[in-house]
């Protein structure tokens, strides 16, 4: 019975257990179901979010790869693009053949293949893939923008990223920017426009286009000397500016500076006196070391700072002064020297170091290894007055490459890239040809001004148009009807581009030469006749005089050489004899006189200069060329030394060294360079200083107000070569400067594969969702 009772109780307990178990089971089920539902929602959500982010990152990686490919090869395209005018849309059109420049990288699981079958570039990164397309937008050049050829600068890039079934896409428009073709001055360090000397009243003028300083920009008058106050000096003025851009730092104006901005669509022309920066230059700034202070360090007080402008000028500067917040940081990399060398070796002109044997004099402290000289090859392309020494191969491809230093001057006969693994000394007028069939261009490009060389920032419109006409020149650049006055000259140095003012015979040849003809004629005919015949464009060029008395003629020539010596008495006598013998007549024709002056007299001066350039008497230069230069100045300037009103009907031009081209250098700053409105800044230049006299480089032939150095084109400094030795001594005295943008640059010889170094800026960006099907079909 007990057993039954026990079993009855057990049965009852079993019944409860079932109920309890069922209840607990139910509760557990509910809890597990809730947790499962919640967790799976969270997990799914996290996975989706993660994939979305990854896919977007992959699409962005595609954009970056596209821009890298374009940076390495600006002719890179995967497709052509057509414009759907009705929908105002861009559509992908034909596939084009392409090759990659970016190498695969197993370390990062990165590889790219053209396996999409649609012509898109495809790559894998981690557990995802990306594809992208690149195409040039078929747009016409906008004639309103002087600095940009719009037909070659807009690209569409679409990229898709995919992780599993999650797809994202990015569509953007990118602008290709050519520093050498778009910027008047482009500096990957701090762009400093502080030129001149203390106590001077001259003005340096910078005209047209864009200025860019990657780490900042400073513009100002000379106020300090080695960071101590000095007499205020040379000022800077900016004209026809499009924009002043800084990639990373601020844009500093040290004094009120007049800047003329050009009109742009929707933006009228503005002339603004930009007030001094609200972050002044610290007079006793903080530098990491005295050495750093001397060599260009930006004081801590202004480093990385971005000045703001008062509201009164802010609106006018909008879109024109672009600092680091404007997303315009450009980093174009470095020239491809290996490729350029190969091009020079195959159809170009290659100059190995062993052929660079001329010992080119330099000042102390310039080169620690070669003492008072550097070894260089001289490339004198010649000009309208003298013949050069450069022989180019037949079917020349336009590339000249030297393993060592180059000295260049004269007018290249075609588009050319002149490249040096070391430095390039630009030692005279460069790349400004003259059409000798036109009387006004008989000796040179007509360097005429509306007022004069000092007061006008640029040539007269008539003269400027001669250079603009070069864009429509025919296949034959020497065709008198469509004469090409300058070519696309790319001058690229792995170290420095040095402007070399030492030689008046190279810097001012076209200015001195007609004056020399006049000076000699003055000995033979009355001065007024000499002036009319030799200096006026309409002049006959003849010597109308009785020269049958040879002895008398010889005396007259000797008298000329007393005033303008060759520093070679024998040669002077030979020339006097030759002249009196040749022209034993009543009249010398224009052609005969020109022949003698050019082939005999001027040639003698050029040859004499090689050995006698340092000759002095009574402390002044003795060689006739220097004296001719002095007298030329006296003729075209008033008593105070200021140039008179320029005349377009004569051959008298203010002494000007003119260098036309894209000058690109890679060296970092290695010379004395005090930041701020400071005179103690040395640029890469040589000539006309006391240091040059004592070093045997050349004499002081002009002071700052007596000559102009005109850079017509652009200057680019990549600052990628950081191994340059310091220059520890002075090497030049500054000229008055004109840096003018050449508006033909955007179009002159700019093929897709021209090798121009480019940087790319994203203009528009769109994030979009995508589907696996879209990815497959992309």
């Amino acid at each position: 019975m007990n057993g039954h009772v026990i079993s009855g109780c057990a049965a009852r307990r079993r019944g409860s257990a079932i109920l309890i178990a069922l209840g607990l089971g139910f509760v557990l089920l509910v809890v597990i179901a809730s947790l499962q539902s919640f967790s799976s929602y969270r997990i799914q959500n996290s996975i989706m979010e993660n994939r979305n982010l990854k896919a977007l990152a992959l699409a962005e990686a595609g954009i970056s790869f596209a821009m890298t490919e374009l940076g390495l090869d600006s002719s890179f395209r995967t497709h052509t693009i057509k414009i759907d005018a009705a929908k105002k849309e861009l559509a992908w059109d034909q596939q084009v053949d392409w090759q990659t420049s970016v190498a695969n990288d197993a370390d990062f699981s990165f590889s790219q293949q053209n396996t999409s079958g649609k012509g898109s570039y495809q790559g894998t990164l981690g557990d995802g893939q990306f594809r992208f397309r690149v195409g040039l937008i078929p747009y016409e050049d906008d004639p309103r923008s002087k600095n940009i050829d719009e037909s070659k600068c807009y690209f569409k890039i679409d990229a898709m990223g995919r992780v599993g079934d999650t797809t994202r896409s990015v569509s953007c428009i990118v602008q290709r920017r050519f520093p050498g073709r778009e910027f008047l001055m482009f500096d990957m360090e701090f762009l400093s426009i502080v030129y001149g000397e203390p106590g001077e009243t001259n003005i340096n003028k910078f005209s047209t286009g864009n200025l860019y300083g990657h780490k900042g920009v400073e513009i100002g008058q000379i106020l300090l000397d080695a960071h101590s106050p000095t007499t205020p000096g040379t000022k800077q003025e900016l004209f026809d500016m499009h924009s002043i851009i800084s990639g990373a730092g601020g844009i500093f104006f040290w004094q009120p500076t007049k800047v003329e901005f050009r009109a742009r669509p929707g933006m009228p022309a503005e002339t603004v006196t930009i007030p001094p920066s609200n972050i002044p230059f610290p007079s006793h700034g903080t530098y990491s070391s005295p050495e750093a202070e001397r060599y260009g360090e930006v004081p801590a007080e202004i480093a990385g700072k971005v000045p703001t402008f008062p509201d009164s000028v802010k609106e006018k500067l909008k879109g024109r002064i672009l600092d680091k917040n404007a997303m315009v940081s450009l980093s174009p990399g470095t020239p491809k020297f290996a490729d350029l060398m190969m091009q020079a070796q195959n159809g170009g002109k290659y100059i190995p170091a062993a052929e660079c044997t001329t010992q080119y004099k330099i000042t102390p402290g310039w080169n620690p290894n070669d003492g008072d000289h550097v070894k260089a090859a001289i490339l004198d392309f010649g000009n309208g007055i003298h013949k050069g020494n450069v022989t180019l191969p037949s079917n020349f491809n336009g590339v000249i490459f030297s393993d060592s230093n180059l000295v260049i001057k004269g007018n290249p006969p075609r588009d050319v890239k002149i490249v040096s693994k070391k430095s390039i000394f630009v030692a005279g007028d460069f790349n400004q040809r003259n059409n000798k069939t036109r009387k006004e261009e008989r000796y040179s490009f007509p360097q005429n001004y509306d007022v004069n060389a000092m007061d006008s920032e640029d040539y007269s419109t008539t003269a400027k148009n001669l250079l603009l006409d070069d864009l429509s020149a025919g296949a034959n650049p020497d065709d008198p009807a469509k004469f090409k006055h300058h070519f696309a000259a790319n001058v690229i140095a792995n170290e420095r581009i040095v402007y070399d003012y030492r030689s008046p015979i190279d810097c001012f040849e076209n200015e001195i030469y007609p004056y020399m003809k006049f000076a000699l004629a003055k000995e033979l005919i009355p001065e007024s006749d000499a002036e009319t015949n030799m200096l006026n464009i309409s002049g006959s060029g003849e010597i109308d005089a009785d020269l049958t008395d040879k002895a008398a003629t010889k005396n007259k020539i000797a008298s000329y050489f007393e005033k303008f010596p060759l520093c070679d008495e024998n040669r002077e006598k030979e020339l006097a004899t030759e002249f009196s013998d040749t022209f034993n007549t009543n009249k010398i024709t224009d052609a005969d006189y020109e022949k003698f002056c050019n082939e005999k007299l001027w040639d003698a001066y050029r040859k004499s200069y090689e050995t006698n350039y340092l000759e002095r008497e009574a402390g002044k230069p003795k060689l006739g060329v220097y004296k001719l230069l002095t007298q030329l100045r006296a003729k075209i300037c008033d008593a105070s030394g200021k140039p008179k009103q320029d005349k377009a009907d004569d051959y008298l031009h203010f002494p000007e060294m003119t260098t036309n081209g894209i000058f690109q250098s890679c060296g970092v700053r290695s010379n004395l360079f005090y930041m701020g409105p400071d005179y103690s800044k040395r640029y890469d230049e040589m000539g006309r200083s006391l240091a040059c006299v004592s070093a045997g480089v050349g004499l002081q032939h002009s002071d700052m107000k007596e000559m102009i150095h005109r850079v017509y084109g652009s200057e680019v400094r990549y600052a990628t070569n950081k191994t340059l030795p310091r220059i520890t001594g002075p090497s030049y005295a500054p000229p008055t400067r004109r840096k003018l943008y050449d508006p033909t640059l955007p179009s002159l010889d700019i093929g897709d594969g021209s090798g121009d170094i480019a940087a790319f800026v994203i203009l528009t960006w769109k994030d979009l969702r995508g589907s696996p099907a879209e990815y497959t079909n992309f």
Partner: protein
Amino acid sequence: MRRRGTNLIEIMMAVIILALLMTALYYTYSGSRKQAQAVMQAHQTNDELQRLFDRITDDLRESNFVLDGTPPKASMAQAKNLKTEDPANYISFHKVTYDFSLEPKNLATDQCNYTQLRVTYKLEKADPGQATGPYILWRETLPFDDRRQQVPAQRARKVLMEGLDELVFYRLDEPNLPTNGSVCIRARLAGRGKDSRYDSTLVTSIKERGAEPQ
């Protein structure tokens, strides 16, 4: 032997035990459910904020330039003290749309091949009488024509989110950080169910991708 049946007391005891058990189970279930709801609500709040952030960051990423001074600069320490109701707490930027179907030769002197849209995000108190939030986030748009002139007639304004407890914009001023110069957004949103104990705070940074038209 006659089997003894279940008496009333036993049944009542079973019912009582079952009732107690069910009550306990109910409370356990109900508590879990509430907790799950609260977590879901917080998550939903978080999702709402995330969606808002996605919207704003997508918008900003597509912009070409942010107007000077908007938003104000702030270091990380300064950013903690930024207030939603500060009148400087807004961001204005331009998005540029190019039209390459316009040929340059056909453009007027002052005509561009692009138009612009100025987008402004700003906050207003839901109840102007209150000292603080909640706040309403507005997205205002002002188109510019292809002469770079404003088109006020096409100005538009719409609410992006209501009930925000905090939203501040600032441009990060930390020169040593990689995100220096980025636009940062910090927002807080309280849950909006019956139980609003849960809220969510998000911070993000974003950089405009485009560039100012040249």
